């Protein structure tokens, strides 16, 4: 028998990464866990409270409201951005000078930092000096996102669509350009209509990039913080207080570290769970249509 050589050097290679992750992720996370199960009255005195904070959060109306606002927001974002992105990608030119022009103008919103996007729209939508807000008011439309919850939602949704549809467009466009020209030729010879070309050629061929787009847009919209924070600060009232904004309010505004820690753990688990669901669905459908056709 030959003793299998075990190379212990690999551990040393992994060590720096492990330390880095420990300081940047694991230790802060454990601190959060620490707060979630204890209560403190200052001067570093901690009392074990078990699952009390979690029970409090799960039964609090405030958490329910934030959670449903969050789910509604992500659902609206996905139903608008995915079809719109696909439609724009389909309408984009396939060759010629239009391609770089379209691609660059599509990529521009993605290059702007999130808080800048928020600031742009915050000013843009203002009734007194903002181009959009002022124009709408002049046209006699009652629009004031600082007072009207519906206007606040519309502002944030339009902003997010403006900011992130490009991502869906770029992904779909990449999926579309991977379809060989002969597919369209064959469909043309068959006499297939535009709708059946979309249904039977383009959509199946885009399926995998689309699921990636859905996953990315879901996670991002579910964790949205910066833009609503800049534009509405969660208002008017609590109408745009999404989960991350609520969390920050609780942790930093009220300094309720215990419930905030419990809530952030729940928030993390929800995102993890939903992403896992999306991922499973994605890889299942992906497997069905992988190595298919060309």
């Amino acid at each position, binding site marked *: 028998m030959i003793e299998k050589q075990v190379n212990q050097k690999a551990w040393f290679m992994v060590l720096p990464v492990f330390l880095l992750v420990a300081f940047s992720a694991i230790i802060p996370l454990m601190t959060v866990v620490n707060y979630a199960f204890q209560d403190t009255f200052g001067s570093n005195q901690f009392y074990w409270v078990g699952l009390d904070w979690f029970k409090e959060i799960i039964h609090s109306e405030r958490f329910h409201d934030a959670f449903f606002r969050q789910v509604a927001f992500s659902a609206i974002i996905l139903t608008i951005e995915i079809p719109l992105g696909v439609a724009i990608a389909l309408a984009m030119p396939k060759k010629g000078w239009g391609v770089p022009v379209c691609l660059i103008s599509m990529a521009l919103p993605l290059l702007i930092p999130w808080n800048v996007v928020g600031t742009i729209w915050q000013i843009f939508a203002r009734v007194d000096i903002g181009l959009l807000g002022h124009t709408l008011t002049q046209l006699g439309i009652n629009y004031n996102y600082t007072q009207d919850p519906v206007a606040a939602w519309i502002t944030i949704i339009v902003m997010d669509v403006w900011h992130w549809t490009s991502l869906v467009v770029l992904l779909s466009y990449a999926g579309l350009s991977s379809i060989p020209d002969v597919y369209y030729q*064959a469909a043309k010879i068959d006499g*297939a209509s535009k709708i059946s070309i979309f249904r039977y050629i383009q959509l199946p061929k885009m399926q995998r990039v689309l699921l990636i787009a859905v996953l990315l847009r879901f996670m991002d919209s579910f964790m949205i913080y910066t833009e609503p924070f800049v534009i509405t600060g969660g208002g008017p009232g609590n109408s745009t207080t999404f989960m991350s904004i609520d969390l920050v309010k609780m942790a930093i505004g009220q300094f309720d570290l215990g419930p905030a820690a419990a809530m952030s753990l729940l928030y993390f688990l929800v995102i993890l769970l939903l992403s896992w669901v999306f991922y499973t669905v994605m890889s299942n459908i992906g497997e069905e249509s992988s190595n298919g056709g060309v």
Partner: protein
Amino acid sequence: MQLELRNVSKKVGKSFHISNVSLLFEPGALNILLGPTLSGKTTLMRLMAGLDQPTAGTVHFSGKDVTGVKVQKRNAAMVYQQFINYPNLTVFENIASPLRIAKIGKTEIKERVDKVASLLKLENMLGRNPNELSGGQQQRTAIARALVKGADLVLLDEPLANLDYKLREELREELPRIFAETGAIFVYATTEPSEALLLGGRTATLHEGQVTQFGSTIDVFTKPNNLITARTLSDPPLNTLPVVKLNGRMLYKSHVEIPLIGKLPQLPDDNYTIAFRPHNLYLNRRKNTDIRVKAKVAITEITGSESYIHTDVAGVRWVLLASGVHKFGINETIDIFLDPDTFYVFDRNESLVVMPETVAGV
């Protein structure tokens, strides 16, 4: 039912992709377009299908001018080098798709799909998705889709090029039978001379957008009108030798003398190109008139039953095809023999002036 191209040209930008092509295809026969990549095969097929319109000339179907008629109204079908199927439809639905577009009844669809599926040996695959099939089966599905609608014109653009050797042979053997069972006009594009010869039928050789010859494949092979045709329909490549005939002597590079036998003495003094096939170059003397040449071996390729010996003879590369296994070292000097009876001779315009005795007799 006939497909006729009359003086068809296709200009893209300033260059002619197809120039002045006239062809007449009869139904039931397999027509092969043979030519290297970029010789214009696909362009010509797109013109036949109606996917593109010619810059000049007309396309006639059964005597009727269909030049401006759109592809959807032409009743043509096409099979590509890539395996083009609808990825998320079953094989049955894939084959049925042109019939569904044509709004044909359910029972007739089933009948026709079953018939063509059994012709292409896909009966047991009908419930599967294309991605669960081998490359050969995927291409069979694509061919079935082209055949099922009973098109008058079926265009196959290098359909076997993406298949591996075994599947290609298998499908190639079946194709003539499949073609014979459907009455359509088949046009088959390929880059491989051996494929054209194996499939038989009629061959049009293409070179830089022009048809250099069109006739029964064997005729084109044995009696090429010109050097380009002979080169296009020859694999392994034709061996050539530029010679000058002067004062009753035929010389290569003014020192290798070619004995004037057969029809060679009757040729007027001029520049000629002698061409002969690799299997007409021999390792030993067979006739008194054979010419012995000293050759340097460049490389020997052994397929098992045959050996391709690439040789350098006074600056030209010739390939010798010998049966059995022959092993020569690189740069080894060997004697090889040419048989003037097997020579094709082309004049300075590359037109055929002398063909081998054996062929002339046929």
